[in-house]
């Protein structure tokens, strides 16, 4: 294929879209057509995954900052270019996306029966947008992908969602959009600043890293700009108190939608902070460090508490996401290597475990058409294999050592402790409440006698469902037991990230940081 070496990333990004368009040609009438459509989409996503694995193989952590770069001028008037590149930080998120996509697709084989063609088209289009955002090295391009992501997701929720789907879809869209529009203004300003300082417009992220912006006070340019970006990212994360779109969107979205939303879309926020928010505005990051750590801590506890009393499984998982992503925030803002690595890892973990949780909820939802916790009870008895997988994922979610969740949370808290022990102590209570709400939910759904006669005859996991869940279960343990597999490709990038995010800081780091500022 033409230019596969020079345009490797472009191929990865647009491969799903190619498949999506080709899929439009499949006559999706009737059962056979629908099956063909499903398989075609699955094939597309699998091939994308395959290609992205070769990205993993060829990525050299000791090599250049960004690899596989491509740059094509785009709108030279404003310095926007089509610039792609991968470093350790984007690498794993790309892999997470391509890894989860086939599972989400396979997971919705039987759930989606109407408008099959559109559904899979949108899923693949969504994949392209997500991948695009992860590989963009131009803030304009990033924004384009960032926004382009909204539409397929919006339609996925709105068309194939639950009862309140339209409200949820609208809320999702508008919430995210309002945040990102202010980011857009900030992007304009940055490009303009680049012109003033360097003599030419540029929205290339690497160029923007070199900007000198006045910072250190609340009303300084840097702070305001940072807040504009942070708003967009915080909504996406979602950070308390901007999280209320998430429960609705999650609950209403179809299974695959929830999976992708939780697993990848939320990561955009964290990724945005890492790629744009921190390195461009180092002083503001320092300035707002405490604020965001407090918010993150609140998110952890608040999310856990509110999750505890949710009557709907998906809503519970949604609030648990709020809680888990709160860890990501405090880890990132702890600004030392341990915390940041932990945060990053936590993002991957959350993708795996929450994705799996949604798939599992999808499994019983398909059988029972309800997600009400009180409608269940004693499912373990009827679906023992399901119970086993559910248990494993639950444990991953409560961060049991040996599963992926522990590594992330432990590193985050360890990192954050150095910055602010008091807050970290509060955040650590999340460990307790996390166990409370997850296990309570598990107990109510899986344990006890089978009281509802409708639950008597539920079928256990099918082969297809096993195929979907097995890789996730495997990932839970691999990530929990051998995280170095991930860290080794990540480390140089994280170190560079921290260096960039702390260089301009006015105050020297406290002594406790000393081992990270190398």
């Amino acid at each position, binding site marked *: 294929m033409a230019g596969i070496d020079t345009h490797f990333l472009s191929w990865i990004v647009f491969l799903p879209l190619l498949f999506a368009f080709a899929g439009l040609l499949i006559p999706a009438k009737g059962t056979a057509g629908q099956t063909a459509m499903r398989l075609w989409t699955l094939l597309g996503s699998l091939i994308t995954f395959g290609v992205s694995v070769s990205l993993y193989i060829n990525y050299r952590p000791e090599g250049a900052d960004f690899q596989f770069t491509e740059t094509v001028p785009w709108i030279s008037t404003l310095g926007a270019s089509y610039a792609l590149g991968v470093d350790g930080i984007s690498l794993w998120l790309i892999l997470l996306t391509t890894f989860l996509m086939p599972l989400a697709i396979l997971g919705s084989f039987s759930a989606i029966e109407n408008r099959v063609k559109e559904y899979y088209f949108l899923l693949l289009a969504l994949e392209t947008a997500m991948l695009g955002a992860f590989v963009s090295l131009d803030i304009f391009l990033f924004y384009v992908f960032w926004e382009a992501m909204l539409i397929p997701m919006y339609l996925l929720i709105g068309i194939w969602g639950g009862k309140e789907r339209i409200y949820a879809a609208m809320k999702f869209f*508008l*919430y995210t959009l309002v945040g990102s529009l202010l980011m857009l203004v900030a992007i304009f300003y940055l490009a303009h600043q680049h012109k003033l300082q360097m003599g030419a417009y540029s929205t290339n992220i690497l160029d923007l890293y070199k900007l000198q912006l006045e910072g250190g006070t609340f009303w300084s340019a840097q702070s305001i700009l940072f807040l504009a970006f942070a708003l967009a990212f915080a909504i996406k994360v979602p950070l308390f*108190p901007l*999280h*209320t*779109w998430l429960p609705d969107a999650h609950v209403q979205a179809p299974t695959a939608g929830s999976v992708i939303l939780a697993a990848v879309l939320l990561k955009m926020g964290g990724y945005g902070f890492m790629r744009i928010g921190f390195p461009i505005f180092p002083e503001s990051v320092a300035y707002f460090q405490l604020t965001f750590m407090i918010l993150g801590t609140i998110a952890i506890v*608040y999310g856990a*508490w*509110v999750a*505890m*009393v*949710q009557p709907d499984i998906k809503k519970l998982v949604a609030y648990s996401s709020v809680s888990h992503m709160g860890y990501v925030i405090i880890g990132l803002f702890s600004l*030392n*290597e*341990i915390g940041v*690595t932990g945060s990053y890892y936590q993002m991957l973990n959350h993708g795996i475990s929450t994705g799996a949780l949604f798939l599992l909820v999808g499994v019983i939802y398909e059988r029972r058409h309800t997600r009400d916790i009180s409608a269940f*009870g*004693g499912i*373990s*008895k009827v679906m*023992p*294999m399901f119970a*086993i997988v559910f248990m494993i994922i639950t444990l991953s979610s409560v961060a*049991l*050592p*040996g599963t992926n969740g*522990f590594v992330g949370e*432990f*590193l985050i*808290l*360890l990192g954050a*402790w150095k910055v602010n*022990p008091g807050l*970290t*102590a509060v955040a*650590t209570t999340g*460990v*307790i409440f996390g*166990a*409370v709400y997850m*296990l*309570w939910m598990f*107990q109510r759904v*899986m*344990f*006890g*006698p*089978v009281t509802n006669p409708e639950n008597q005859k539920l*079928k*256990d996991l099918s082969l297809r469902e096993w195929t979907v869940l097995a890789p996730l279960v495997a990932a839970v343990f691999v990530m929990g*037991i*051998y*995280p*170095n597999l991930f*860290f080794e490709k990540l*480390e140089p990038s994280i*170190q560079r990230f921290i260096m960039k995010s702390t260089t301009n800081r006015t105050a020297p780091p406290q002594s*406790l940081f000393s*081992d990270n500022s*190398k």
Partner: protein
Amino acid sequence: MLFWIPLFPLIGFLINGIWYAFGQAPAGRKKAGAGLPGAIATGAIFASFVVSLMIFIQLLGQDPEHRAVEQILFNWMSVGKFHVDVAFRIDALNTLFTLVITGVGTLIHLYSIGYMGHDETPGKFFAYLNLFCFAMLMLVMGSSLPVLFLGWEGVGLCSYLLIGYWYTDIEKAKAGKKAFVVNRIGDFGFLLGMFLIYSTFGTLDFESLRHLFGHAGSLPEGVSPQVITAISLFLFVGCMGKSAQIPLYVWLPDAMAGPTPVSALIHAATMVTSGIYLVSRLNFFYTGSPTAMSVVAAVGAFTAFFAATIAITQRDIKKVLAYSTVSQLGYMFLGCGVGAFSAGVFHVITHAFFKALLFLGAGSVIHGMHEEQDIWKMGGLKSKMPRTYWTFAVGTAAICGVPLLSGFFSKDEILWKAFSSPSGSPWLWFLAAITAVMTAFYMTRLFSLTFLGAPRFEVAEHAGHSHDHPGHDHGHDHGHGHGHGAKKVKGIAVHESPLLMTLPLMILAVLSIVGGYVGWPHASWIEHWLEPVVGGGHEAASGVSESLEWILMGVSVLGALIGILTSFRVYRNLSLVEAMTRNVQWLHKILENKWYIDEIYEAVFVRPIQVFSQLLWKGFDVAVIDRIVVGFGRVSQWTGETVRVIQTGSLQVYALMLLAGLIGTAGFLIYGWH
């Protein structure tokens, strides 16, 4: 070679687990009996017992100062300077633990084959049991805090799984959850302790930490005693959770919902002692902080006393044992808290023997009684279950502190240290001694009510092993729910348990008798053995003579005998008991309801948090944040509705706007003209 110790149970777990998950659990698959899975599991744990023994022997041959075997498996996490290996390190301290875990574990596994013979899913049970052993071994063998924590949480998980093993009974499932959550509260402290250690010392490895401390009592340079105290207390919170100390003991009595072998293994012999292991492992922290020491000792002593008071009135055979366990764990912490770490560890070992024995005996009783657990509905089992009777008697004697049995040595050591050690005090001794009397009393009560006197249930006539197991009637494994037992009181064919179950009892009985000789006063092998790790016992405080030691020992023996005899006297005549109970009704009620601690916790922590969470959700998330969000929409809509009112459709109004605009602008311009 070290890694084989945990690996064997892990392999056992994987075989049984995968076999269960894919071969037995799916609908329509044939269920396996207890035999094969049990054999696999027992074999696995026995294999690791053998390896442990080999390691022990190897250690015996080493120089005391460098008595350790270490193995690094692989690097677990490596971020910047933070570096954790999955590595094992066995030294004098934890070799004892591995031996106890694998040894007692083997016996309990063996016992379980018989006990779980009629269970629906023995495959699952043995898988869990092996998983537990694996985690427990990780806990004691891990060379650094994170690895220890891996095991620490892993045993919590297994405890959770095994307590809620019969999950169709929602109460049991709840008990499991409670155990996990309360343990998590402890883990919270543990985590904070780890964070503080890492941020202070930059390492989490035991050896490195120990080297930083140098010799007993001295603090590393530049570290304030407050930090040490904080670390010690944080970690002790973890121990409170795991080892069921006040205020986090509440899960352990409930944990009796699990199958009895589980209670024996996890909730008596091994897991609950991991707190003592942690404290002794990190003894250098505690010796560095007198405050922390006093807290540990006080909590231990008070827990011991408090649990004993509750144990006196319990009716459930396992609950009595559970509170007794809590009480004994208190002793162990008391020992550690006064600096007698070796005494604490010694008590761990003897306690493992006799408490496992007692639990297994109780299991045998329950098994024989067809799931009856209420001691008031037993009695006279002496003749029906002779082997159980005799072994149980040994266990009871051991725990009561009858001289020359294992419990006597270890308990007495602790009592003496509590009195004589510099950080001890007569008050601690007094509390512990009272507890010893109470222990003797309630254990004898238990023994007496269970085995002596006349049967308080109708004896079914047809003897023989007619296992019309309730589980089979109901078609699912409700069988062991004790609620069913009560209804079946009529006509119980009590039978002695099979040899598979009584054999472990006998072995443990022997151990309970002889296990204490390793700690013969003033010639304690175990104290000597542990000295390189936990440091030597403190010399007695000045003014405490050797004769005093003998006197105190005599007092405690006397106390135990008084307790035993009183109990025998009282519980021979049950009407007398009732009369006495009536006299102190209020006290009895409080004790029977366990000081209402569960209720208080429910009212003070659980309910408020739930209500508050509900309030946060409905009252803040939905009512405030979402309302603000939706409010923006509403305001926009309202603005739109308002603005469109001027759109009257009348063209004159439209034209008037032109005029108005002109006035505005012209006025503005002319105003600005000057």
